């Protein structure tokens, strides 16, 4: 019984990034962190990039795809826009993982620029050409900028968390 409880706790802890990703996609999280008319950031990009790069067993591509679909419904975008941009971020992360031997915060951070730019570019092009929704370019820019700036902070939090769950598993 004790083993089962420990197993449940471990699987819950390992699923936490996925739970956060689903929650952020489905809730009003973005609205609550929209300050001073400029401050907003894309937590989904940060979560996806970090976990696909550092521990892909935590976050499945299928779940990333589903979270994208949910995000499209909640934001009233055409279905398929967010999954494509999230999967592009995953692709960049998976490529960096395959191409590099040892990743550091600095290397992760600067390659994250490619993921943000590519992901937002896909969103922007698809909205611009296939939807009637107007895009505020300034908001879009600030969103990308703050996502980039905040990455190291989340990297540190996730790194500590990853170490914590690794210690529990090998305990």
């Amino acid at each position, binding site marked *: 019984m004790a083993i089962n409880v420990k197993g449940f706790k471990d699987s819950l802890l390992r699923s936490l990034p996925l739970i956060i990703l689903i929650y952020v996609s*489905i809730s009003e999280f*973005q*609205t609550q962190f929209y300050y001073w008319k400029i401050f907003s950031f894309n937590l989904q990009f940060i979560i996806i990039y970090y976990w696909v790069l550092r521990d892909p067993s935590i976050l499945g591509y299928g779940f990333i*795809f589903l979270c994208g679909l949910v995000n499209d419904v909640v934001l009233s975008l055409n279905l398929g826009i967010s999954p494509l941009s999230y999967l592009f971020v995953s692709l960049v992360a998976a490529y960096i993982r395959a*191409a590099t031997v040892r990743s550091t915060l600095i290397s992760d951070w600067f390659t994250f620029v490619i993921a943000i730019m590519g992901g937002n570019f896909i969103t922007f092009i698809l909205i611009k050409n296939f939807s009637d929704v107007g*895009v*505020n370019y300034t908001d879009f820019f600030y969103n990308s900028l703050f996502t980039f700036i905040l990455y190291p902070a989340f990297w540190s939090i996730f790194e500590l968390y990853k170490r914590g769950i690794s210690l529990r598993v090998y305990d």
Partner: protein
Amino acid sequence: MATSRDDFGIAIRSALLQRGAKQKFSLFALILASILIFTLDNLELKPVKVLRGVINDGVYRLSAISSSPISFASASKNFLSTHLNIYKENEELKKKIEVLEKDRFDTLYLQTENNKLQEVLELDKTTAYSTVGAKIMLDKNSPYLNSVIINKGSNVGIKLGMPVLSKGNLVGRTVEVNYISSRILLLNDLNSKIPAVISPSGEQAILSGIGQKNPTLEYLPDGFQNIDDLTVYTSGKDGVLFPGISIGKVINNEVDESRVKVKLFSDPNQILYVNVILDKSNDEEAK
């Protein structure tokens, strides 16, 4: 050079096709699935639209439930700050009551005068609307859309483009209608364009959202004078919105003089309940 190109190819192929630990789908398969879904959604086939409506209803309900802790925290913060400012607010309200008392007598006089004039002109006296009340389920501000989701849809007769009021003032119009939920595009959204008339001068303009708190007036006539106490109403020129719905006051102390901004009577970021105008009532209902 050739080796580095080979390395790039191998790494990309590995990223796209390798499923790895605990991955049930490859990235390539999911990207194809996303493109397929995107294409089907863009074709706007009726079965896909119905399916999307069902998904929307389900996701909105789920989203409202999952957002409740955040909404509760936000409401608690507002509640506390309101209580801290209660003395100051009380003083302001007393002053406002004095002004309103005076206005009430002015209004009564004008109403009587208006009734008399209408009798003379035999104008249509219909002023009230048939509305349906709805609660805001989700308040989503994003870089793409300033909109809210309400808990009523086509089940109570809501249709696309219907005007939405909060405390009797226009706050937006419906842009997406599902069976038990609808999306309201707020007046301050970048995509919102409403034909408006400015009172008392009677000048016509288009009220456009610019993604900020206050929308602006566009296509104003040459020589427009931004004087005190200009009120903006819907003009009804688009044939969709009814004329004479109050929107807001023109701001004339704005530093940015290139834009004429309008302070909305109902702050779109503070609304909790709205009324969707279904139709104009007939004279009997209006009475």
